[in-house]
């Protein structure tokens, strides 16, 4: 689906990280956690391509005018990394955006009785909030949020408000534990009795470590990947990721935008 969204708010939630709320058509209400949208920052030819963003939240709001009915909204959490995201951060309420989506396959919500462990690194939390919101309806949910410094730990209070138990770790120790988020995850896994599913999104190094932990302990694990993509609909084939049996001699590529962005960790090729 392609639609024009009106920005409702665009706020810097931490240095360099922004949260944008925009209007969305009713069809967006059924977006699955883990799906993404392709956003055209402006109508000019530079930047030329759309930018992919995970859907942070979906909800409804009631416009200020009298007699207004509740309307759906969508939120994105993004980091300013280049020209496109810098331009996005300069937009204001009532500005319009051209959006394609929701796109891709979302997370599988798994069995209700098992514990859900969500691991997010930095802006990797973007698709995990909507996931937590769905999972908490039926399961115990714990979030492990990691970053380089406290500035990279985003929107934790929102997760806590849902009833998610949150653990934080920063590499410089400025918030939560000093170290990698995977250490806190490992400690929790060591204490656990019953079944669990891991969900992760973040830098590739973190995903690699989480996938390794999950494989070692035979715990189901889903990861959400990023990819350089032009179209988001499976045509450009720019965003592929190496699949489990990939090697230079026998290539095995999976298309992140249409086969993902969420994959079972075991489907992908990881560093040994």
């Amino acid at each position: 689906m392609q639609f024009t969204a009106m920005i409702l708010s665009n706020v810097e939630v931490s240095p360099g990280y922004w949260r944008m709320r925009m209007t969305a058509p009713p069809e967006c209400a059924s977006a699955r956690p883990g799906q993404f949208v392709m956003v055209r920052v402006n109508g000019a030819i530079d930047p030329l391509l759309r930018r992919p963003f995970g859907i942070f939240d979906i909800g409804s709001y009631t416009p200020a005018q009298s007699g207004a009915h509740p309307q759906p909204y969508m939120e994105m959490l993004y980091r300013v990394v280049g020209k496109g995201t810098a331009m996005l951060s300069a937009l204001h309420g009532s500005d319009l955006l051209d959006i394609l989506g929701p796109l891709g396959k979302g997370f599988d919500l798994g069995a209700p009785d098992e514990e859900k462990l969500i691991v997010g690194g930095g802006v990797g939390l973007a698709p995990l909030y909507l996931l937590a919101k769905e999972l908490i309806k039926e399961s115990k949910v714990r979030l492990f949020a990691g970053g380089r410094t406290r500035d990279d730990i985003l929107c934790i209070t929102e997760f806590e408000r849902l009833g998610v138990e949150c653990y934080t770790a920063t590499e410089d120790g400025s918030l939560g534990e000093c170290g990698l988020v995977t250490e806190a995850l490992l400690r929790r896994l060591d204490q656990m009795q019953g079944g669990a599913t891991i969900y992760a999104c973040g830098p590739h190094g973190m995903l690699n470590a989480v996938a390794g932990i999950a494989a070692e302990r035979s715990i189901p694990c889903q990861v959400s990947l990023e990819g350089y993509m032009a179209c988001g609909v499976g045509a450009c084939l720019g965003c592929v990721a190496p699949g489990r049996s990939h090697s230079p001699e026998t290539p095995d590529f999976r298309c992140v935008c249409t086969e993902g962005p969420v994959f079972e960790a075991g489907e992908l090729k990881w560093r040994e």
Partner: protein
Amino acid sequence: MKPDMSVNLAGIPLRNPVMTASGTFGYGEEFAEYVDMASIGAFITKGLSLKARAGNPTPRIVETPGGMLNAIGLQNVGIDAFITKKVPYLRSVNTPAIANFFGNTVDEYAEMARRLDEIPEVAGLEVNISCPNVKLGGIVFGTDPDSAASVVSACRAATKKPLIVKLSPNVTDVVAMARACEDAGADALSLINTLIGMAIDLNRRRPVLANITGGFSGPAIKPIALRMVWQVAKAVKVPIIGIGGIMNAVDALEFMLAGATAVQVGTASFINPGAAQKIAEDMEAWLIANGVADIKSLIGALET
């Protein structure tokens, strides 16, 4: 009054001159949600080969001002899976599908032409002798007139369907390439494929693309494409398909003035999956606004 938007492309009747370029429109079905196929002239499939190809390592694409570089590496499902998995969709749409293909050798090109000739749903063939991103096939045949002629002759002998040859801009003399392909039996020429470019990540001191170089496309290349279409149109008799940075109806109409009978929309479909349909509609609106009754009257109508 509605203007006549139809053109005839080497025996393929098109309801309008707007086609979608190979490699930017998948196998058609990826865009079914966004484009009414019956609103465009034709679509061209992703480049096909005898065996499936997995393509190049990543990163495969990078954006540059006004354009993008890609080094996908001709990833495709291969001819057998094309027939079993993709052709049924072609059957379901009321729009000509043109199969783009390539080979590693002249014999492979001819074999591909033979296989595609047997598929009733394929309205025409587009020979890719211009992919800049693979070692074998593609551009090695597209930069030398004699090699190009040998590929085109072999394909010509293997198919009765309309045969389009897609030309590379990465040559010194595109007119010599065009003439060689026309003489070897091409029914139409499409140009231009992407220009070879590169992007560098200063901080990492490394090329951005895993393939180091890639094919440059998008609005930034339009002036080069227009110039080449104009040069080739003056030199050959076969119809020309103009390709290169077409983002809107004005761009498309400029290519027709330069001598193109039809156009292909490429990178624009990545940005707006419905771009080809919108361009066709806006071209018709331009004709109405300017009192042009037949779009064919614009082909090569540039005044110099």
